[in-house]
């Protein structure tokens, strides 16, 4: 799966100096001489089960747009303080005197707003291997397993976190030649693979942006839903290559992520129109294609994404508009929901502005499942796939 990644598409393109600088900063080895602690004993840092930790993180990263979002948007101009982040990372990267904990490591990486949760987890797991004091492969593998389990239990609602950890385990530990080498070279090899995996995952967004350029034509109108960093990257790349297109942004209640996206797009001089979520069908006839991101891509080829994606896909399907999904391959999960309720719940609070009587029930689910028959294509870092190929990839990876 990963070795077939069409990352060659990036090779032609000279890397932005900013990127390389950051990657260098990231790949500084983190060495902790202290023995690792069993992180399984850690209490779940997210005791509030009413609210999905995944969406809390997203809210923190994307700056939930509240009613005074304009003021925040002004402040957000100075957003992405990369230098600061990297510096703090490097400071915390080698915590001396404190036992190494994969959760801490993960939280360090997670602070970077541009880094997806799964990639942060992958980097954290790579750090586990590096810091490991294990002397046998088996020991190392058990340690890795524990670390990944604790990461997964940190937030059970995040599909990409779980899938990313699983994929990392498969990718890193699946090598039959390991038994024949001595432990140190095997470990070096594991670290190499782990870093390569992290690298691929990190590059994924750019690969997707490049692959999807063929589908955006001049004069098209694109409907986007919610805020997805991949979709933003796609649109950014299209705008940078001087394509003329128009974007309709849904509002994205309740955390109004669409407002943030429209803000970002306006900065790129892309014509943007903001719709309330219920105006999708009304404006669908003007739309040429629908672009959405995904929280997770499931085995049927369908996606789990922010609430409202399913109905947009349904409307688009009934009007014969293509629905494109941009998703990194670390979001491919071994899940198979049969219907909307057949998923682990991910809840988040909804603000209505007025007090709601206690007798009134509120649907607080944060995401829905879009079946594959309503999706046209998936843009992933493995290439442009039809929904049915997702299962092919998953089978090949896990079997």
């Amino acid at each position, binding site marked *: 799966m990963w070795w077939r990644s069409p990352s060659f598409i990036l090779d032609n393109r000279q890397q932005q100096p900013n990127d390389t600088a950051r990657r260098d900063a990231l790949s500084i080895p983190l060495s902790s001489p202290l023995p690792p602690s069993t992180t399984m004993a850690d209490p779940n840092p997210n005791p509030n089960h009413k609210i999905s930790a995944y969406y809390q993180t997203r809210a923190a990263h994307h700056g939930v747009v509240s009613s005074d979002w304009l003021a925040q948007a002004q402040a957000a101009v100075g957003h992405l303080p990369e230098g600061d982040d990297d510096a703090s990372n490097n400071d915390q990267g080698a915590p001396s005197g404190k036992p190494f904990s994969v959760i801490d490591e993960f939280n360090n990486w997670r602070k970077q707003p541009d880094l997806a949760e799964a990639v942060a987890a992958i980097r954290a797991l790579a750090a586990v291997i590096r810091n490991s004091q294990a002397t046998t492969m088996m020991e190392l593998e058990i340690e890795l397993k524990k670390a990944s389990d604790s990461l997964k239990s940190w937030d059970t609602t995040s599909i990409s976190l779980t899938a990313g950890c699983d994929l990392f385990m498969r990718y890193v530990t699946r090598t039959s030649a390991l038994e024949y080498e001595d432990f140190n070279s095997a470990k070096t090899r594991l670290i190499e693979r782990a870093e390569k995996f992290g690298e691929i995952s990190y590059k994924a967004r750019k690969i997707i942006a490049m692959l999807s350029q063929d589908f955006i034509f001049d004069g098209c109108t694109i409907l986007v839903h919610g805020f997805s960093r991949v979709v933003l990257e796609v649109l950014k790349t299209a705008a940078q290559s001087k394509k003329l297109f128009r974007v309709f942004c849904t509002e994205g209640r309740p955390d109004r992520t669409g407002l943030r996206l429209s803000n970002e797009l306006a900065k790129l001089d892309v014509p943007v129109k903001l719709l309330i979520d219920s105006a999708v069908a009304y404006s669908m006839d003007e739309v040429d294609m629908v672009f959405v991101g995904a929280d997770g891509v499931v085995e049927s080829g369908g996606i789990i994404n922010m609430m409202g994606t399913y109905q947009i896909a349904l409307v688009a399907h009934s009007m014969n508009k293509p629905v494109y999904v941009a998703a990194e391959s670390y979001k491919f999960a071994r899940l198979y929901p049969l219907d909307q309720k*057949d998923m682990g719940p991910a809840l988040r609070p909804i603000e209505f502005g007025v007090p709601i009587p206690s007798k009134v029930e509120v649907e607080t689910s944060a995401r829905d499942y879009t079946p594959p028959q309503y999706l046209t294509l998936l843009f992933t870092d493995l290439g442009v796939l039809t929904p049915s190929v997702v*299962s*092919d990839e998953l*089978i090949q990876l896990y079997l």
Partner: protein
Amino acid sequence: MDARRGSLPVPRVRQVGFFTPNAQPAPTRSQSGPPDSSSPPLSDSPASNSLSPVMIPPPRHHSDNLAAAPRPTSPLPVPEPSPFRRRGADNNNALLVGSYNPAETLLAMSPSSSHVGDGESEETMSGGWFRRSNSGKLASSLPSGTFDFSPVQSTAEALKPNKVQNPVGISAPKEQQPEAPSSSKQPKPKLTKAERRALQESQRAAKAAAKAGGGKSVAAPEEVATIKSVKQHQTQKKDAPQVAVSVAASERKGGDKSQEKERRKDAPAPRMQFDDKSRVEKAKRRSVVDQTEAKKRVELFRHLPQYEHGTQLADLESKFLQLDPMHPAIYKVGLQYLAGDISGGNARCIAMLQAFQQVVKDYSTPPEKTLPRDLTAKISSYVSFFTQCRPLSMSMGNAIRFLKNRIAKLSPSLSESESKSSICTDIDRFINEKIVLADRVIVQHASSKVKDGDVLLVYGSSCVVEMVLLHSHELGKQFRVIVVDSRPKLEGKALLRRLVAKGVHCTYTHINAVSYVMHEVTKVFLGASSVLSNGTVYSRVGTACVAMVAHAFRVPVIICCEAYKFHERVQLDSICSNELGDPDAIGKVPGRMDVNYLNDVSNSGNLQLLNLMYDATPADYVSMIVTDYGMIPPTSVPVIVREYRRDHLLI
């Protein structure tokens, strides 16, 4: 960036499952490709109407065609079909003289097999073949000489450009040009061809002589060959364009020959088509089980075996002591199939494999034979015995293929006892890994989909589905089961009994009421006899109906099926491959003496009773297939088939 866009004008999209890659004429697949293109002229001639052009076998010698094409006795140029009929005669001849070559017969028979309803014309054709096979001198008695030639030829010419596009290796490029029929261009290539022909003639004569030396020949083929060659040389110059046409056809086929052979090896043997009289005759002669054909056969299903039920068992039992080549274990399992004591895909497959294991244990290689070859032949004969008892399911076909593969792959350095024990362990492993453990994995996966408060609908009796229900019940999940059943087997009652005994809350209904109960159902669990690579589920008759109703009610349909039952075949309907049950079973209702409307009319010629055993559910109605590889969408069946095949070799 623009440069990159230029290099990639068409977006590349990866697909899986069912799509047609444009203009790739998969040459390894079937005979329907290349031979098709050369046959259109044939279909216009009345004599060959019943021969399916698609399945015409390639000649084994160029001279086959050449010898037959021109006829000295006929005053008119002879129409095209004759070479093919001629070839048919040759094949039959070969069969009559006893050199039974399965590949040959398969090919010779396959033309008719593609037609379902033309039994009569087939008969006349084969009659013709037999007559002609007596000697080479009967050429003048052929009806073909009387046909008007010109329209045939004109169609041949019109269709010439079609032939040219034949994608497979071609030996005579000159004939391939669209203007080939013009006779002015012929002389030069003809000379070289004449030489080639002479060479081939001599080879053929030598071969025929060898055959005759074998002492099996009835008619002297040597003579026939020489007569033919003489004829050919005489007539060659007379009707040059006509010869050119047939030469073009034959040369092309000759070029195909080696590829054709490989293709034949790869392609699965075509199934027996029971409307093919001559082949059925032959099969009957070899068969152990004495079956009388049903008097009234359902027209649309003539290609399936339709025998009188209930007669074979007693007959076979009486034969028990005479059948010395048959192993008793095989015999026992065959009888159990016949009597219906063993039913259900897994049970039948396990019984068969265990019988084979017994055979292998008791096997000793006869002198001057090798174990892999002899044992494979033995197993093939046992398989045909099983087929006579009851048509094999596709899963059993897969298991047999696995077993034969293992036998063929045995290392020659192993001693006999080692080989035998290796085969036995392989069989054990197959049963364990592919059936027992697979079921356990399926149960794990499927019961994760059962939630509290669910209403599950099941149809018929599938052992995996039953295990899923019981396991979910053991896990303490609160759910209700609706068992849907259908006549005549009423297998659901047994399932119902077992479920109720375990304390599962059940509802029992017949398939007539499925649309009534469907609105309260939350999930449908179904078993399958096999899953085909377009996602079609081949299962107990009625499954398609249940799945369709569930789909209409937006209820997810979950198929539980072990991966060894997946088959690479594609099937679009349930007509071309099916199994017919006892027709009387649907005519009579046991225990209801008042339902006797059919008693006096059941012998009437107007009434045909059809008791189908299986049907095909389209992939659209299936939400998910649970296999030992996890939960997959029906579009991913080809992926599993691909992986699983590799697995076959690895085990």
